[in-house]
């Protein structure tokens, strides 16, 4: 055959790849044939074909063998991997002796001015061991917090933290640690998790760390709201969440004392001095408040010159639950704006807030509502049930003049109607049937669903609102967001996240781009409450198509200005080249053109802000830069840009850290140095312990099925190959 091949090669200009690749064995055979031409002549074409087939079948066998071996190897790896899990997550924190136990007490100081909360958390640590220690501890912060300060107090000395580029900061810290200097490093790990490292805490020594951050107070449904997370653990809450936790309500003018019965917390005896919490919040405002409420703590509220002062009542309070404060000012019925500015010499930072009008001042408008529900496999079970309940709730809330449509999507998109229909008994009945018969199955192909929903013919004169109910389990977030941005046109997008771990970033961004809002339903019994809240808002768009003219070239966030709904404020922060003289706002209110000018100097409230505004602006800019990554911004460039902004404004980010080093070395480098992970500092609810979730699956069935499959295949191969397959004749 090789000879034939050679002959063919001469005749044809092209060769088939199989013939080109000759093995060493072929070469040897060729040699043999050349030395003994008789051999080649004896071989008939039939044998040649057979031989080729035989070689081919061996290759297939090789392949099967290879696959089988691969399956076995995988099985082996699975086995050894699960064998390694033996000790996983079984120790209880703080009860084991392997960690240095550090006690902690926490003092929190909150100053709230307008929409900005300045929070300073001071924690005392003490090394109760007999060795020098390095502590590592993680602490929670609210999402979007701008961390900009850190002080450590060792003995009588106070060191101030400095923002540095992440790598540099780490090097500085590590060097100081190895030198025996006291040092602290704060790094951001994720969006809302930070890690503090503390080096060279002497035996039985106390150290105090203060971390300061700025946070925007949230505002919805007529009241302001601030939550300070205190634990890593979601606290188990007595009673059912849906029913509402009893609130501390203290009406101004009435007794300024809370009346709430706080559930007793169980403190093991002898431990009660650790983890103590003290907290003071100052609400700085010229206005009177209608109510101040603390959700989980008993508080004492006092009216002072520049506002109100809130203090924890219980001297035995510990950091076992989040602090949650809300306060309600009185409101006018027409949208009013307030402006705060700060001039740092180079630029002016301005914060503009549009207070929402009360719902009763607004006439409800007919809308076109398109409900999209995700029925992909990931929604199976509880998630689908919640989504169905949410949709049924949405149907009930439709007005008589509204139009609506329903779409479900998984791998395919299925609309109820080709275009939106008026709300009638028949259409509602059809929709209910459609919803109740939904089943979760298949992939999450979100793009076609969005596309077909947005491509449906619009109902003239009605605002289109798209309500998207999903767990957001998608991989191509950026593409989808781009699609939302491109196709949305004048429609509004509301996202309803479902389930335990929805992709909240994606959902929030989609709502932001779509000028709508975002809610999360984590449990079936939250559906009613959450959907009512969402519906109450979107039913009455207060101020739409808002435009803001800052005068000069302004860099402001959020870049897409959302509609103003009853119950939600509009909040903008900008950097301007100069003090704004006049800021013009326009929009549509009750179907009519609405205009408003805000005078820079004498706007309602007339507050002149502090450098906090600049920091918050920088935080928003960084967030926007991070978001741009999702739209394909260059990674390295963005990192440089973020680092630049963070260093300029002194902010802790993923690329910058806070570091503080004591100049004088304190530990003799020869002394032993124990590195302690500090779980004892974790949720300081002393009444409880934390336990890990053990790994509770053996996977024996998968292993059995796989290995049986391999067994069967290899055995049959063994059985047949010996007898049936043609083999190569020996030539030797």
């Amino acid at each position, binding site marked *: 055959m090789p000879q034939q091949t050679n002959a063919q090669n001469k005749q044809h200009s092209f060769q088939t790849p199989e013939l080109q690749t000759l093995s060493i064995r072929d070469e040897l055979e060729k040699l043999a044939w050349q030395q003994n031409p008789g051999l080649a002549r004896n071989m008939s074409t039939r044998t040649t074909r*057979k031989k080729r087939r035989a070689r081919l079948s*061996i290759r297939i*066998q090789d392949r099967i*063998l290879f696959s*089988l*071996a691969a399956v*076995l190897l995988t099985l*082996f790896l*699975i*086995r050894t*991997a699960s064998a390694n899990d033996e*000790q996983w*997550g*079984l*120790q209880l924190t703080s*009860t084991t002796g392997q960690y240095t136990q550090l006690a902690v007490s926490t003092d929190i100081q909150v100053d709230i001015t307008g929409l900005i909360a300045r929070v300073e958390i001071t924690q005392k640590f003490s090394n109760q061991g007999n060795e020098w220690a390095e502590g*590592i501890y*993680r602490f*929670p912060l609210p999402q979007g917090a701008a961390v900009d300060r850190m002080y450590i107090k060792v003995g009588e000395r106070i060191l101030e933290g400095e923002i540095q580029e992440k790598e540099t900061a780490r090097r500085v810290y590590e060097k100081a640690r190895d030198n025996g200097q006291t040092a602290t490093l704060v790094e951001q790990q994720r969006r809302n998790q930070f890690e503090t490292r503390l080096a060279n805490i002497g035996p039985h020594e106390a150290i105090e760390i203060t971390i300061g951050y700025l946070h925007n107070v949230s505002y919805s449904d007529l009241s302001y709201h601030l939550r300070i*997370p205190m634990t*890593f*653990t*979601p606290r188990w809450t007595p*009673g*059912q*969440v849906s029913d509402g936790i009893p609130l501390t309500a203290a009406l101004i003018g009435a007794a300024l004392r809370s009346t709430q019965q706080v559930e007793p917390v*169980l403190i093991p005896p002898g431990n009660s001095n650790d983890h103590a919490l003290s907290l003071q919040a100052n609400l700085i405002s010229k206005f009177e408040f209608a109510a101040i409420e603390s959700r989980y703590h008993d508080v004492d509220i006092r009216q002072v010159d520049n506002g109100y002062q809130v203090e924890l009542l219980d001297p035995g309070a510990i950091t076992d639950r989040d602090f949650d404060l809300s306060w309600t000012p009185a409101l006018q019925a027409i949208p009013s704006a307030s402006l705060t500015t700060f001039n740092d010499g180079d630029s002016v930072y301005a914060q503009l807030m549009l207070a929402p009008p009360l719902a009763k001042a607004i006439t409800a408008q007919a809308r076109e509502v398109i409900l999209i529900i995700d029925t992909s496999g990931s929604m199976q079970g*509880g998630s689908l049930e919640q989504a169905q309940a949410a949709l049924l709730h949405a149907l009930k809330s439709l007005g008589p003049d509204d139009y609506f449509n329903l779409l479900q999507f998984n791998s395919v998109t299925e609309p109820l109607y080709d275009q939106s229909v008026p709300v009638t008994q028949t259409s509602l009945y059809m929709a209910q049937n459609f919803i109740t018969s939904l089943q979760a199955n298949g992939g999450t192909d979100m793009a076609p669903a969005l596309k077909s929903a947005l491509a449906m013919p619009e109902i003239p004169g009605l605002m289109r609102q798209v309500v998207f109910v999903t767990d957001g389990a998608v991989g191509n977030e950026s593409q989808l967001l781009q699609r939302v941005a491109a196709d949305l046109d004048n429609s509004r997008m509301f996202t309803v996240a479902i389930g*335990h*771990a929805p992709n909240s970033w994606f959902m929030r961004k989609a709502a932001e781009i779509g000028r709508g809002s975002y809610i*999360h339903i*984590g*449990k079936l019994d939250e559906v009613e409450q959450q959907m009512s809240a969402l519906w109450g808002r979107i039913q009455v768009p207060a101020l739409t198509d808002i435009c803001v003219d800052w005068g000069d070239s302004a860099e402001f966030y959020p870049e897409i200005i959302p509609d103003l709904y009853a119950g939600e404020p509009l909040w903008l922060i900008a950097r301007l080249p100069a003090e704004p003289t006049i800021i013009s706002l326009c929009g549509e209110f009750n179907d009519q053109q609405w205009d408003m000018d805000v005078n820079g100097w004498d706007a309602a409230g007339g507050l002149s802000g502090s450098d906090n505004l600049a920091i918050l602006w920088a935080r928003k800019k960084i967030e926007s830069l991070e978001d741009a990554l999702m739209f394909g911004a260059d990674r390295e460039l963005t990192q440089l840009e973020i680092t630049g902004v963070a260093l300029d404004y002194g902010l802790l980010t993923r690329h910058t850290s806070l570091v503080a080093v004591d100049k004088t070395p304190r530990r003799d480098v020869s002394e032993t140095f124990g590195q302690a*992970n500090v779980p004892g500092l974790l949720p300081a*609810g002393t009444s409880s*312990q*934390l*336990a890990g*979730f*053990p*790994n*509770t*699956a*053996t996977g*024996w069935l*998968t*292993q*059995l099925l796989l*290995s*049986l499959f*391999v*067994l069967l295949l*290899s*055995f049959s191969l*063994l059985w047949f*190959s010996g007898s049936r*397959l043609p*083999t190569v*004749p*020996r030539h030797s």
Partner: protein
Amino acid sequence: MIHRRPLRHHWILAAVCLTAALFSIDALWIPVKAEVAQILLARSWHQTLAGNPDAKPWPWADTRAVAILEVPRLGLREVVLEGSSGRNLAFGPTMVNSTPVDKTDDRILSGHRDTHFHFLKDLKKGDVLRLVTPGGSREYQVSWLEAVDIGQQQLVIDDGIERLTLLTCYPFDAPTTGGPMRWVVTAVPFGQNTNVAKNNTSGKVIPGPRVAEPGTSFRLPSSY
């Protein structure tokens, strides 16, 4: 002329065949072990009850039976072991708490989803669970069932609260192991009306579901 010659890959095939067989036996051994261990454990449990607190189910065992878990509706009865190590989980449901079984009221049991705790799939709200410990027998009623992401949430043990929690991996029929989800069944003492928790004014702590709101928590260091 065709020679019948054993394939030169035969020995590899044979090896693959043998290994696969060993793996099959290894896989089958898991449920077999799980069953056999329960029988031996039941014996040691009776010894424990008879007043021998250190009764070992087999001479080299480093665990012991601490309780019996019964589910009357499903006709199930399982011996619970001390210590949630991977090895103990192979033999039976285990107690997650490190405190002795009668020293706490807030008990957490874990078991493999594909052996002892497969029945968690069939548990419904309202089902009665019975836990027999040397200290006595208690009845609980299943009140909450939920899937939890371990990256998002933590188990909290509150010694003063009486409840029984059963844990296993989730989803039940996932082909691979080591996923982040757990199925958590929380049961409260039988007869205790869970609705009471809503308007609890007695000042007494009423049990609630073990895991709280998702998204409000933070991951613990992996080294804890």
